[in-house]
């Protein structure tokens, strides 16, 4: 029993988790700052916290796939455009063609996953840099978006509306019965999808052979190949999975704004990469955890929330703050990497 406890402790204090702790620590610090500064405006309420999830679920869902791609040492710039294209599929399909949303979603899934697999194939088999391949994928998806329509299309479908407005109110037990907490807070389909995807991502990375292959490929592709691991299959499947995540993010975004627009989520790919990087994933590959990405998303989304609560700052300060945050994180990462390599 005692040894078991010790092993858990030593597992938790493993230096490989230090970046995750840094992310969690800085998130708590920023959150505590908000709590002190804007407690009177209600920053501490459950609603504010839950809204961080509701307003950023689509970035989070996409960040799950992106984390895996980054761990293999690749990059995917097409996620924003693919998510936007998914929204266009749903909007154009339901509102103009009169299709059922599920048909549109199925079409979007086929599109996203096959585009991802194709890009993975080009990257691995034709040896084209991931940056260039996925950039072309981004241009392509964005172009198809604009071909479908250049104007924003509203999504009007009873099933879609009911899914978008479906919510679970958070309750508390008081005076012998369950009542809704005040101010009213709820979680919706997007939040659940986000958390489920994080859990799936965690499971894949930590508990499956595929997950271990991802780390191995990212750590050193040549050694992985020499060990007989299926490098090509892993890389291609990772891009396919990321395509799936982009489509799910697009569905989530469509549920959030209830419309499709060809220019939506422009620059979204860099937001998602930023989330993963401040969550402790290294762009050189081989290092990253899903739980870090979860807190990376929260950390990135708490900054706009703080600026909204302040009320006097131009929203542009959010961008500058995010840039500074990146700088801090990169410096910490640099410090950790150099100290761990000097220990060896």
């Amino acid at each position, binding site marked *: 029993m005692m040894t078991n406890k010790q092993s858990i402790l030593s597992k938790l204090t493993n230096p490989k988790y230090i970046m995750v702790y840094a992310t969690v620590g800085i998130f708590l610090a920023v959150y505590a700052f908000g709590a002190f500064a804007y407690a009177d405006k209600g920053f501490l309420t459950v609603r504010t916290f839950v809204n961080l999830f509701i307003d950023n679920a689509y970035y989070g869902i996409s960040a799950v796939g992106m984390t895996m791609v980054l761990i293999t040492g690749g990059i995917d710039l097409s996620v924003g455009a693919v998510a936007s294209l998914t929204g266009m599929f749903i909007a154009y399909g339901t509102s103009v063609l009169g299709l059922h949303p599920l048909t549109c979603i199925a079409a979007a899934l086929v599109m996203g996953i096959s585009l991802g697999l194709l890009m993975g194939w080009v990257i691995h088999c*034709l040896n084209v840099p991931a*940056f260039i391949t996925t950039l072309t994928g*981004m241009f392509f998806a*964005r*172009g198809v978006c604009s071909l479908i329509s250049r104007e924003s299309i509203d999504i009007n479908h009873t099933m879609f509306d009911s899914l978008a407005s479906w919510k679970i109110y958070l309750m508390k037990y008081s005076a012998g019965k369950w009542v809704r907490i005040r101010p009213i807070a709820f979680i919706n389909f997007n939040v659940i999808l986000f958390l489920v995807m994080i859990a799936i991502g965690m499971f894949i990375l930590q508990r499956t052979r595929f997950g271990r292959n991802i780390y191995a490929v990212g750590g050193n592709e040549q050694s992985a190949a020499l060990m007989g691991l299926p490098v090509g299959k892993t890389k291609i499947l990772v891009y396919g999975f990321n395509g799936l995540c982009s489509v799910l993010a697009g569905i989530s975004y469509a549920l959030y704004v209830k419309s499709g627009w060809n220019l939506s989520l422009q620059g979204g790919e860099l937001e998602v*990469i930023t989330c993963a990087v401040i969550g402790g994933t290294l762009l050189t590959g081989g290092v990253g955890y899903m739980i870090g990405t979860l807190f990376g998303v929260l950390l990135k989304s708490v900054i706009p929330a703080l600026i909204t609560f302040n009320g006097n700052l131009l929203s542009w300060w*959010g961008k*500058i703050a995010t840039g500074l945050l990146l*700088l801090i994180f990169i410096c910490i990462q*640099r410090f950790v990497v150099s100290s761990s390599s000097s220990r060896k």
Partner: protein
Amino acid sequence: MNKHFTLSGIFQSKVTWAVIAEALILLVCFIIRPDFFSISYQPSTGMLYGSLIDILNRSAEITIISMGMTLVIALGGTDLSVGALVAVAGAIALKFLRWDVLTYNTPGDYTVYPYVLVLVVPLAVCALMGLFNGFLVAKGGIQPIIATLILMVCGRGVAQILTDGKQFTTGYSPFRIIGQGSFLYLPMPVVITIAVVLAVALFTRKTAFGAFVESVGVNSSASRLSGIKADQVILIVFMITGLLSGIAGLIYSSRIMSNDSNNAGLNFEMDAILAVVIGGTNMAGGKFSLTGTIVGSLIIRTIVTFVYYFGIVSEATMAFKAMIIAVVIVLQSEPVREFFARRARKREARLERGAA
């Protein structure tokens, strides 16, 4: 200088494929509309007009930036911040032309600050921002793509805050010359591009600097051991890229005579990187080809002009561009080039046997 110009060698060069691609696109243009190549002279403006001139003119910003980007990629890095720096340069220039909005609330032919400052300060700030990128990479040992991601994320924020989120317009005629004037029958941006290309080419090919860049790109610790100051090379390359982004920013804002912090330079980093890679410079670093980069930049612009000129719905531009670039990239990929080079080698071997 023992370069053998064999068929297999030519097929193995990526620059060849870029030139072939550009020639094919232009050929298609010519077949569809033979007057695509016609150039006319307009005495009133003293400028030449025609689709080819237009391609050169409109590709100016990307060509200028991609000159710096070529060096960055030859070092084995990428610079994502160039688009944001274009916005910063425009914002500063317009702020200096129209500093006090209350006194000068109508755009006219005036500048509030001396014209020299309007030109020099944006360039200096952009060069400093480039130096900041270089500092993170050289002294901090941070991967270039991440180091430059910082300025890419917050550069536009800086540009917006410098101008208080406002968009100024100006009518100052000396400023208009940069983007809309002409010199020796050519549009001014083309002239500036030629000057920049010559300067970069002379600096890298007539001094040892180009060789230093390639050597650091191949193996930075080995080149440090052989006496090259790798840190200095990196700092200079990123500073040059920042400066060139500033020049592109001045051209861009002079074309629209305004600052547009949201859209100025949007996706320029992507186009510049594409131009360099299509031009045959390997993203892993090492040898670079400035000629290839110019061809790459022209390919990108020719595709867009093609789409406009032939009245293909402008919404299709992006998808069209993606497909042509995909074809070029697949043609340039290692297996395909190997395939053609092998066939050429076989033919050469056959010829040699026939001669013997």
